[in-house]
């Protein structure tokens, strides 16, 4: 029941959700939209790998909300909306932090 905080930690490079989120943010700040798009896809893949591990000990709403934030960020990046993308990415980071806390 308390394993979530431990299990959300990355088991490999391709599961590092907060690391990849930081990369996306950096790319958005630099208006490098192509790299931001690519890094966001990697973030979503990483997140999908983490979900099966943490689903038993985490609140469903936080899990769902993080997914929604990533989807919104994807739309903002497609629209090249820097402010919107940064808002959503920040919110996704906040959901990640709240998982298990």
């Amino acid at each position, binding site marked *: *029941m*308390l394993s*979530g905080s431990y299990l959300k930690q990355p088991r490999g490079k391709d599961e590092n959700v907060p690391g990849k989120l930081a990369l996306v943010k950096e790319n958005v700040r630099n208006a490098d939209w192509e790299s931001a798009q690519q890094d966001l896809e990697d973030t979503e893949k990483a997140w999908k790998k983490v*979900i*099966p591990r943490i*689903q*038993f*000990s*985490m*609140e*469903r*709403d936080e*899990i*769902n909300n993080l997914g929604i934030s990533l989807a919104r960020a994807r739309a903002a990046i497609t629209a090249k909306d820097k402010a919107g993308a940064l808002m959503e990415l920040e919110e996704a980071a906040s959901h990640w932090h709240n998982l*298990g806390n």
Partner: protein
Amino acid sequence: MNEALVVIVRGVIGFVTLLIFARLLGKQQISQLTFFDYVLGITIGSIAASLTTDLTTRAWPHWVGLVVWTLMVAALQWITLKWRYASKYIDGEPTVVIMNGKIMEDTMKKTRYRTSDLLEQLRLKEVFDLSQVEFAVLETNGQLSVLKKSEYQTVTTQDLNISTDYQGIGTELIYDGVVVEQNLKQVDLDRTWLDNQLRNQGINDPSEVFLANLDTQGNLYIDRYRDHIQKLTDVGDYPGPH
């Protein structure tokens, strides 16, 4: 996220937790529960249900809630066991609602106990005539204890000066086709005796027996799987699934 899988896992956690906690809380039967115990039981069950199906929150806070309520109940049980005053306050006291054949209206009003409740509970005790009752006590669990006037009490063998044999608790010697060796040893008997008894009744093997019970008079009651009843009595009075 596989919600069904999460519910299964959380359901198992809730079930095992409830099982352990229910054992910890002791052997009080439902019929012995006071109203407060009953509400506590419902609350604990409700928390376990939320633990299983409320996926919007983590299982941990629900589990902590379960532990807290269980500990509070255990603490309350301990307090009422050790401290009579607290017991009187928490569990309440039995209330006399009929004293020397007279209904105590004020007491009934105080306990919000209706006359219809009294009459119903008396009927459940096979008392249909109020004049037969000397004392009626409303117990803390809501049950009514009734003492009939001496002239209406059931005659016992002692009243008739009839001597009776000792009657204790029977011992199961065969349970579900299997001989309970431990019980057989306890009543100082052996397999040879049991086999002889079975053979006398036309039974070749204990596996043919559903239940064999030995009473303290030495009578062996045997029920076989095959009951050889020609015509079954059906208590159902309406056609439908059996």
